[in-house]
């Protein structure tokens, strides 16, 4: 059966309550009559034979020779792949990366290539654990490469294993993983969950150092990316593309493989989350009640572990290989086919329910900074054309926002939250006053390199990710959040959606237009 596209519903008397994600829980909210709800598209049909499609892509790439023609005995081959931040939630085995990497390795073996290294392209994210690597690349690949030190996490702070390639015409320094830079062929394996992913961002960001990343992961870039889901209006992408040009000119041959997934996000018993409320069957309603009630009585730690164990039934909808830019065009079109929803006009108030996960809390805690990043960074930027909410409008997000941090994964976040945000929430001031000291802190550097910590500068990037929204919005209200944590973020807490809407009226005036982003499954609002 063909999927139903995303659409905009206008709430009337017969509209059932609307589902809001709320961390490791949900809320059903009755939106005022006349409100709009933007629903995502249903899942696209997956590729019937994904392994065959992958092989086909490798043998018939776009604007590039077939992969077998690029593989020669004695050559140095590096396969880089997206890290634990993709996809969300993690997908059921076999992960797409495993399928693709196995196919590439088969061809490499056939060609007699024996100098092969696999690198998790994690930039300044935390290192992947063995379990996470096994999940991504599969046991067979892991066991063949990791014990011999041929499968490892990229280290953006290892001066001995970084290669400086030069500067872009705008003076941006390009420094990436030395092994990748010195290989005869660099194969990059992507999972393009959203349109921001992939392209030159894969290599120029995923394999880069702080020295290089700081040129596009900064406030100015983010404020000039409108949005970073739209490559053509994204300074983040422009910078990465300029860096890609430096990579190309320095002779690095990149064979890009990009895969797309459908919107099949939640397995049973959470599959009601991806249905429209009026489509809920009696069983779905029972599931909602049962899940919600039991979650209410579940300690937060256990709740977190239940949610983090969710494995999405995502299936592959497309795979393209070859030249970076040519491949990325096809990929972006496929992502938009799944996620783009036309929306007419902006809104005074945008509501959204934030789920339990974002790219940076896999097997971890969604701390308040990540709540900000998910809401104002990611969800706010899920638009093409204009932001869903008008300039000076109000964003209402629903999330418990606990004052809680994962001490191993997010040590610098704790200090950022306690020390930096206590002083200022202004991204420009934060960048100017604090970034360098965090980025160059030896302790954070040590933890990033040897433990499982995000880089010292990472919480800054999370804050910068929301810089465009902070500049654009007239106010941010968090429903059901820890008031102290919410205030530390510079936002206003509200107990209920009704309270939040009343508070928002103080900013946008009486009788505001309201739009709810019914997300995830993911959607990108194409706002005219």
């Amino acid at each position, binding site marked *: 059966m063909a999927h139903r596209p995303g659409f905009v519903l206008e709430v009337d008397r017969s509209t059932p309550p609307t589902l809001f994600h709320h961390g490791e829980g949900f809320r059903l909210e009755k939106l005022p009559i006349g409100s709009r709800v933007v629903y995502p598209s249903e899942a696209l049909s997956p590729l019937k034979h994904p392994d065959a499609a992958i092989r086909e892509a490798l043998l018939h790439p776009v604007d590039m020779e077939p992969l077998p023609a690029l593989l020669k005995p004695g050559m140095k081959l590096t396969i880089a792949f997206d890290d634990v931040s993709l996809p969300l939630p993690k997908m059921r085995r076999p992960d797409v990366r495993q399928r693709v990497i196995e196919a590439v390795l088969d061809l490499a073996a056939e060609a007699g290539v024996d100098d092969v290294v696999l690198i998790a392209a994690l930039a300044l994210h935390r290192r992947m654990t063995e379990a996470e690597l096994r999940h991504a690349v599969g046991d067979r690949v892991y066991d063949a490469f990791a014990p011999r030190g041929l499968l490892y996490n990229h280290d953006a702070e290892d001066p001995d294993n970084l290669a400086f390639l030069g500067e872009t015409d705008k003076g941006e320094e390009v420094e990436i993983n030395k092994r990748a830079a010195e290989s005869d062929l660099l194969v990059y394996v992507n999972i393009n969950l959203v349109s921001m992913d992939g392209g030159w961002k894969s290599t120029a960001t995923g394999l880069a150092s702080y020295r290089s990343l700081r040129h596009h992961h900064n406030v100015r870039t983010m404020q000039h990316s409108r949005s970073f889901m739209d490559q053509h209006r994204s300074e983040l992408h422009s910078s990465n593309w300029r860096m890609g040009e430096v990579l190309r000119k320095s002779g690095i041959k990149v064979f890009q493989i990009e895969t797309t997934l459908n919107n099949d996000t939640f397995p049973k018993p959470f599959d009601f989350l991806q249905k429209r409320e009026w489509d809920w069957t009696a069983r779905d309603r029972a599931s909602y009640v049962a899940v919600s009630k039991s979650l209410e009585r579940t300690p937060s730690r256990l709740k977190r572990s239940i949610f983090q164990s969710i494995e999405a039934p995502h299936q592959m909808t497309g795979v393209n290989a070859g030249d970076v830019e040519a491949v990325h065009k096809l990929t972006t079109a496929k992502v938009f086919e799944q996620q783009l929803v036309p929306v007419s006009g902006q809104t005074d108030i945008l509501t959204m329910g934030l789920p339990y996960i974002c790219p940076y809390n896999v097997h971890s805690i969604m701390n308040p900074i990540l709540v900000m990043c998910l809401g104002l960074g990611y969800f706010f930027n899920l638009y093409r054309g204009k932001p869903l909410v008008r300039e000076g409008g109000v964003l209402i997000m629903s999330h418990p926002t606990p004052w809680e941090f994962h001490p191993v994964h997010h040590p610098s976040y704790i200090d950022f939250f306690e*020390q930096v945000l206590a002083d200022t929430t202004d991204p420009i001031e934060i960048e100017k006053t604090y970034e360098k000291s965090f980025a160059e*802190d030896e302790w954070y550097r040590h933890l990033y390199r040897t433990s499982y910590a995000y880089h010292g500068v990472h919480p800054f990037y999370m804050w910068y990710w929301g810089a465009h929204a902070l500049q654009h919005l007239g106010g941010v209200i968090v429903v059901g959040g820890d008031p102290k944590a919410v205030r530390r973020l510079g936002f206003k807490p509200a107990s209920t959606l009704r309270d939040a809407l009343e508070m928002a009226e103080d900013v946008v005036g009486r009788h505001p237009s309201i739009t709810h982003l019914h997300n995830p499954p993911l959607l990108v609002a194409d706002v005219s």
Partner: protein
Amino acid sequence: MKALVFERSLPRFAAAKVAGALAPGRGAGPGPLRLKDIDPPSLGAGWHRVRPRLAGICGSDLSTIDGASSRYFEPIVSFPFVPGHEVVGDLDDGTRVVVEPVLHCAVRGVDPLCPSCALGATNRCERVAFGHVEPGLQTGFCEDTGGGWSTSMLAHDLQLHRVPDDFTDEMAVMVEPAACGLHAADQVREESVVVLGAGTIGLTVIAALRAEVIAVAKHPVQRDVARSLGASTVCDPGEISGVVRRRYRSMMVGTQLTGGAPAVVDCIGSAASLQQALELVAPGGTVLVVGMPSTVSIDLTGLWHREVRLEGAYAYTHGEFERAFDVVRAKELGRLVSATYPLDRWKDAIRHAAEAGRRGAIKVAFDLRNEKERN
């Protein structure tokens, strides 16, 4: 005359200790402190009657009231005594004065002076239990002199400091605590320092320091004032470890910082604060104890291994007391007086002082200006 009198009564000491352990300031109810009518104190030549206008309630007073003070003090106080050593009052001729309460050799008529007094370090006087005055390390702990929590007390010529005309009573009553802060600040030689505690003493230390200050403050009002007094960073007690680690570029071994602050000034004096100070100070650094401690149990392994110096800072010299007027004026410390009470409401006053931070206050004082007996 009307006075709050602290009497020697073992059952009441015990009751105060129990009540004080339940909640700070609760020792006032069952303890040895009582509002009484007593004869005014009298001493010989050189002593003057002072009629207190404002008299502050200090942390050491609260500790005494709650039965939490060390037995160390027993031989250097004399009972019954009238507390109150932060005093601005009037002489009989109407001159407004602040009392410098240390009862050192010269005040006691001890001749020759002890070695410390001979050097001008009257705060280290070795004769506070000798001479023609009953034992008492300070006015407010001595039977003979009386104290500020009354309508009349005595002060020696050498203890009197005329209050400048531009000083309000609130400013004047802050001179004594400011002198404590100044004395502690004078001992800090480092250019960067952590100050634990932002009650009155912590804040006066911050006000007097000429170094980069990282302050630990528990309550919002303390944080605001600490910033206004010049602290460059102010944080909650639970955040200080992270702040120090980052500021001084320390690594960590387990939960222990490898480096730390060159100096930590402990203005609390509890076991927890002393332990925290030892955890925050850099190897070879100094922990300066300004808040009055008592019997504490702490792990000194780090002090030994990291060669940390543990120093005390008590009271002030005469010169520092003089200079404290300038600190009060420059830093507008009169604003630290948050609430005043008449003597009749002494239990409310003590409760308020004991819960000052939580209740948004800093210095609580008795206001004697409207006492009938005084006027």
